[in-house]
């Protein structure tokens, strides 16, 4: 039943993605920028999805620690959301960090700036990559607990970084004008919102698939452990 639902959702998502692409390439020409401005239809939704999934990952870490002793099965499911959120979030964040400079170079002539948004995004990417590295390198049964703790530390760092970057001072950078829907013309708003919806659905499909994969791997590991115990 759930598989059918997921399949339907995936099909609907594919349709949405195609529609989103069609909207994006046919969006009306923007006055100051050429075709390159259409990068925002992939860049900004990816950023939103990435931040959302990092929040999911942090929630998963907290959930794992909360249920660790009381309900181990549920705790493992939460840990699955933690790693799925982190991995898919890193994927979307990589997209953001690659498409951003491409857009920035054409729009403003610079590849990078150390303003609040970019620094926070880069730092988030670094923190969650380090989270994934810890999961890979940490040994045995402590891996989930250690990584859950690191996930919490990382999640706390994000607002701190964002606030610290809003402090005016040493490194003023060009301001990212007119982000999101503030002052966006309605003809551009429609492709923008459409692509947000499409990428959100895509991200959810990938997240659910990754979570399923993680549950499978957990089951396989438990099976192996049981076999080793009974052998």
């Amino acid at each position, binding site marked *: 039943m759930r598989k059918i639902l997921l399949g339907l959702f995936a099909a609907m998502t594919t349709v949405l993605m195609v529609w989103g692409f069609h909207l994006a390439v046919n969006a009306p020409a923007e006055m100051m920028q*050429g*075709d*390159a401005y259409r990068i925002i239809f992939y860049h900004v939704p990816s950023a939103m999805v990435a931040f959302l999934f990092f929040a999911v990952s942090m929630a998963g870490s907290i959930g794992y620690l909360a249920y660790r002793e009381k309900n181990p099965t549920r705790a493992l499911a939460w840990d699955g959301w933690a790693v799925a959120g982190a991995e898919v979030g890193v*994927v979307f964040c990589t997209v953001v960090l690659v498409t951003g400079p491409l857009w920035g*170079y054409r729009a403003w002539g610079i590849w990078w700036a150390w303003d609040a948004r970019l620094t926070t995004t880069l730092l988030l990417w670094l923190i969650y990559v380090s989270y994934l590295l810890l999961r890979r390198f940490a040994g045995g049964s402590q891996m989930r607990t250690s990584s859950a703790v690191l996930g919490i530390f990382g999640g706390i760092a994000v607002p701190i970084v964002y606030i610290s970057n809003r402090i005016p001072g040493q490194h003023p950078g060009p301001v990212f004008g007119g982000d999101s829907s503030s002052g966006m013309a309605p003809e551009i708003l429609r492709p923008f919102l459409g692509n947000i919806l499409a990428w959100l659905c895509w991200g959810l499909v*990938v997240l659910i698939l*990754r979570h399923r*994969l993680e549950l*499978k*791997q957990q089951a396989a590991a438990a099976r192996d452990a049981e076999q080793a115990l009974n052998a």
Partner: protein
Amino acid sequence: MKKIAARIAAVIPIALLAWAIYTLLSAPPEPPGDWRLHMTQAQHDLAVAPIDHAYRVAAYTVTWAIQMGFLAWMGLKWTAQTRDGSEDAHGTRRS
């Protein structure tokens, strides 16, 4: 069948990435900094349009390369799981 699917799944993101890099590298050069001395705004926009287009195509292609790459990686892990899982169910250990 699965091996072929896995191979295709691995090739697609790499091909997309190569296409994106090729698009970027083959974009026409930008007009020089003092273009206002040689051409009008309209001419400049005409010269710059293919560069903008190249960047947008590259950005979209890289996005899909990254997304497809992740899907391919998940697919590989999934098939590895199923392979190990099904052999355990028959009681035989993978050698």
